[in-house]
């Protein structure tokens, strides 16, 4: 395809009107571990597989789900180190917003600013796009919200979404299972079932990570014990 001649420089459009580097970044995301998010009527849940390269890795030191502010959390699919950089930048932006306006940053604003950072790296010299897609879950006065941000810098609000390896199966499953009036606990069960669909091997509290935010507007990552209880309920 003529596109390959235009894939060396990020800032060059290909004849078909695409930026090939961004396509490649999306491929990197698509080969990352599956993660998903579901917006319930009274909260949001985000979850991800936590497959570690070896059984010798200390799984308690790996945090794939991070909080950006007390009421906003984020999960990713793709390259872990790129995620770390974005989390650091987003936390700083949220804190700067708070210093300027003395109110907690609304979810849409934080998503917009993170997306702007990701877009900068698609229009600058000598840099490459981020190889991650983010799922941002938050609860502010507009209610529970779930956003997906892509390497290109585009963002979408979802009722339920998935990314990574098993995206098509997971999305089909979510489309069938999603109900508007779902409560947070049901959403967690649905999330676990969706992860289970494409899971290689035995699912347990050690190889998945779940973060929730409820009406109290406090984002937190579930402890392995809590995940074990949810898993038992789902069985």
């Amino acid at each position: 395809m003529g596109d390959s001649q235009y894939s060396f420089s990020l800032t060059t459009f290909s004849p078909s009107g695409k930026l090939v580097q961004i396509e490649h970044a999306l491929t990197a995301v698509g080969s990352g571990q599956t993660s998903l998010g579901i917006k319930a009527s009274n909260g949001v849940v985000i979850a991800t597989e936590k497959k570690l390269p070896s059984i010798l890795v200390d799984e308690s030191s790996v945090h794939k789900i991070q909080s950006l502010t007390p009421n906003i959390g984020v999960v990713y699919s793709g390259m872990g180190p790129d995620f770390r950089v974005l989390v650091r930048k987003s936390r700083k932006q949220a804190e700067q917003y708070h210093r300027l306006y003395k109110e907690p940053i609304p979810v849409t604003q934080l998503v917009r600013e993170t997306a702007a950072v990701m877009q900068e790296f698609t229009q600058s010299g000598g840099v490459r796009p981020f190889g991650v897609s983010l799922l941002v879950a938050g609860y502010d006065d507009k209610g529970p919200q779930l956003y997906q941000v892509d390497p290109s810098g585009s963002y979408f609000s979802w009722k339920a979404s998935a990314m990574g390896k098993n995206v098509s199966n997971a999305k089909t499953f979510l489309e069938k299972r999603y109900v508007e009036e779902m409560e947070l606990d049901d959403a967690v069960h649905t999330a676990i079932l969706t992860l289970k669909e494409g899971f290689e091997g035995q699912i347990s509290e050690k190889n998945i990570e779940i973060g929730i935010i409820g009406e109290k507007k406090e984002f937190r990552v579930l402890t392995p014990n809590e995940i074990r209880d949810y898993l038992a309920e789902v069985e």
Partner: protein
Amino acid sequence: MSNSAIDVPSRGGFSFDLCRRNDMLAKKGVNLPSFRKTGTTIVGLIFQDGVILGADTRATEGPIVCDKNCEKIHYMAPNIYCCGAGTAADTEAVTDMVSSQLQLHRYHTGRESRVVTALTLLKKHLFNYQGYVQAALVLGGVDCTGPHLHTIYPHGSTDTLPFATMGSGSLAAMAMFESKYKEGLTKDEGIQLVVDAICSGIFNDLGSGSNVDVCVITKGHKEYLRNHLLPNPRTFVNAKGYSFPKKTEVLLTKITPLRERVEVVEGGDAMEE
């Protein structure tokens, strides 16, 4: 040919040129506009379970009391509070900024903030500005290494003490501390001593007045007692109110309702993607 009269801009760092200009102008009699100083008595002491901070609530602009009930005990972290004396804007801005930096630090480390971290961030900032940021602070908190109390001077030097006072009323307050402080105070004794020290500043120093604020910090818990004591209530309020004899005469009353000039049309097309 290099012209020696041209000023080469300095490489990085804060430029103190305007400070020199201000000093030169002050010598010639042109003074800076007076800004709001907190005057102040601020104190802190360590008791058996943690730290107690106290402050008065008067803010002055030269000889005028501009705020009768301001807050001088600033939040730094859930387990660290800071009292500020000096220029009100400076203390508020510097504590706000360091509080923000501590929040980011907490996210990155996943741990509770330590008092020495707040101390170092503050003193670095104040030293960088060579004393031009006029904030004198009493910083206290309880972290995993125990209770800590520090004083920070505007030029960036710090002290670590079991009891401390700062501000214009510091001598009056220190007199109370020096005579009554002992190690291992209970919470009530500590609060009473802090209240006595602040009251001593309130009544004997012109730059301090109004009410007493107290903040008690212990391991895992804090109590912010805003206006814990109000020793200066407003007495003799005239119950009859005030009547002023000669009023402005009303000659004509005409009310013109505003006409709406803009029509709002609901709906319409959404903006293009």
